[in-house]
C-alpha cells in the first residue's frame, strides 16, 4: 500500500502502469475481489454520479427544503444555450455538473461522496468537461475515478478530508486536487505530471474555510464545487503544459494538514464563523431554525 504520492508515482513508474491500474490491483489484492467486481462497483458509483447530474440539470432543477439553494445548475444550462459565455462552454459544462450534483445533495437526494458529500460535485464537474473536450468514454471515466481515489487515499491518510477537522480545503480542496491528477491521466499525462497537477490544485485552495450558513451543506458549498472543478481543469492544464508547483505534492498535503489544524473551530463546519457568521448568514439561521 502506498503511503505517499511519491511512493504511488514510483510504483506506477516501476511497473510502467497508469495510477488507475495500481489502484485497481491493490483493491483486488486487499479485498480478495476480482477485477470484474471492483470495476462493477466503481461503475455503479459512476451511475449514481450521472443520475445526480441529470436530476439537477433537468427542467427547473432541484431545490432544497430551506430555499437557500437550488435551480442554478438549470440557469447555467439555459445561459449556455443562449449566450456566449466568458469562460467557455467546456468550463461551464463542468460548473453545471458540479452545481447540479451539490444541489441534489442539498435537497437530500442521492449522490456519490467523492471524497465527501459536501465536495461531491467536483469530480462529476471535471468528468463533464473531459467528456465534452476529449470524448472520454465510459471505461476512461471509471479509470478516472480509480486515479482520483488513489490520490484521495493518500490525502485522507496523511491529512484529512472532513470539513470539521480541516475546513473546506480538506473537502473541495482535496476533491479538486484528486480531479486534477485524474484529468491528467485521462488526457494521456504520465504519473509525475498527475502528481504535479495534484500539487498545483491543492496549493490553489489551501486555507479555504468550512463556513456553511446555518450549518447546512448549501451556502457556499454548491458554488465552491464549481470552483473545485474549474480549478482542477486549470491545474491539469498547467501541469500538462509543463508547469511545476515547485513544492511537491506530499509537502502540500502536509501543509494542508498543518493549516487545517490551525483553523479555529468556528471555521470548521460549525456554522459559526465566516459566511455563516455574517449578518445575512445569521438571519438565514434564525429564519430556518428559529432562535
Amino acid at each position, binding site marked *: *500500500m*502506498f*503511503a505517499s504520492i511519491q511512493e504511488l508515482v514510483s510504483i506506477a513508474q516501476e511497473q510502467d502502469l497508469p495510477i488507475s491500474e495500481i489502484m485497481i490491483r*491493490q*483493491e483486488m489484492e*486487499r*479485498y480478495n475481489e476480482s477485477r470484474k467486481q471492483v470495476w462493477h*462497483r*466503481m461503475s*455503479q*458509483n459512476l451511475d*449514481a454520479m450521472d443520475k445526480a447530474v441529470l436530476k439537477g440539470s433537468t427542467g427547473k432543477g432541484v431545490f432544497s427544503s430551506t430555499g437557500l439553494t437550488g435551480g442554478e445548475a438549470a440557469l447555467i444550462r439555459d445561459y449556455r444555450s443562449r449566450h456566449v459565455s466568458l469562460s467557455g462552454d467546456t468550463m461551464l459544462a463542468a460548473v453545471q455538473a458540479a452545481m447540479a450534483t451539490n444541489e*441534489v*445533495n*442539498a435537497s*437530500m*437526494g*442521492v*449522490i*456519490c*461522496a*467523492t*471524497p*465527501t*458529500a*459536501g465536495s*461531491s460535485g467536483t*469530480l462529476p464537474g471535471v468528468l463533464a468537461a473531459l467528456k465534452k473536450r476529449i470524448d472520454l468514454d465510459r471505461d476512461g471515466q471509471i479509470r478516472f*475515478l*480509480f486515479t*482520483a*481515489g*488513489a490520490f*484521495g*487515499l*493518500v490525502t*485522507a*491518510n*496523511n491529512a*484529512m*478530508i*472532513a*470539513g*470539521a*477537522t480541516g475546513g473546506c480545503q*480538506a473537502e473541495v480542496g482535496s476533491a479538486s486536487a*484528486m480531479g486534477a491528477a485524474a484529468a491528467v491521466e485521462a488526457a494521456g499525462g504520465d504519473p509525475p505530471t498527475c502528481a504535479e497537477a495534484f500539487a498545483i490544485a491543492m496549493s490553489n485552495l489551501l486555507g479555504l474555510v468550512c463556513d*456553511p450558513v*446555518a*450549518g*447546512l*451543506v*448549501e451556502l457556499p458549498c454548491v458554488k465552491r464545487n464549481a470552483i473545485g472543478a474549474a480549478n482542477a481543469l486549470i491545474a491539469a492544464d498547467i501541469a500538462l503544459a509543463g508547469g511545476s508547483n515547485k513544492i511537491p505534492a506530499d509537502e502540500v498535503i502536509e501543509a494542508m494538514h498543518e493549516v487545517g489544524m490551525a483553523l479555529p*473551530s468556528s471555521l470548521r*463546519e*460549525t*456554522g*459559526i464563523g465566516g459566511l455563516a457568521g455574517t449578518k445575512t448568514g445569521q438571519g438565514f439561521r434564525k429564519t*430556518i*431554525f428559529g432562535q
Partner: protein
Amino acid sequence: MPGEYKSVFDIIGPVMVGPSSSHTAGAVAIGRAARHLIGGLPQSVRIDYYESFAQTHLGHGTDYAIVSGLLGYAPDDGRVPQAVSIARDQGVHIEFCEKEGPSPIGHPNTAVLHMQRQQRKMTIYGCSIGGGIVEIRRIQMAGYDLQTEGMLPLLLVEEMDQSLSNDGQDKGDRIADSIRAAGALRQSNTYRSGDGNSSIHVYDLDKPLLPELLQQISRYAPNMIYIN
C-alpha cells in the same frame, strides 16, 4: 500507510442520501454499528452530540441518519429522511442532546448513544472522521469499559468462563491466531469483568473477515459480535 482509509471506495463513495458524508452517511454508519452491537433495534436511545455534531446536527440531518442506522437502513435508502418518525411509530423512545464542551473521545464529529434493548444496556462512543468513514472508540456494556482503536471492522467475543478449548489453547488466543493467519489482525485486547468470571476479547481488524472464517470463529464463539 499510517492512516485509517484503506479502500478506494472509502474515497469514491458511499452512494448516499445527502447532505453530508460525515454528518449524514457517517451518522448512518454509527447507528448501524450500534444496532449490531446491541443486537437489533433498541427500545430506547439517547443520543448525545458534541462539537460540530452538536452545532450542526439539525442542518445535516444527523438525527434521522443515526436513527436510519439503528433501523438497519443503508445510507442511500429513500426512507432515510423519515427515519425518526418511522422509529417512533415502532415504539422506540428517542432523545437528542446537544452537549457543551469537548468530545469525550477527542473528535469534533462525536455522537454517544445510550441504548437499551430488552435487559441489555449499552453506551457506544462513535465519531465520523470524514467521507462516511466512522470509528467506534469506546463501548460500555455489562460492566465492561472497552477502549478500542476505533476503526471498523471490529470483532468482540464474550467468554463466560476461562475454559480452555480441547487442544488446551486459550479460546481468545486461538481466535487471534486464526485472524492473524488471515492477515487481518491489527491488535487484540482482553477485558475481564469485575468479578473475574468472564471476559471480552476485542479484536481490531485491518480488513473484513471472509465469511468462511467468521463461520469458523462463530462455531466456538457463538455469542461473538462482528461489526463491519
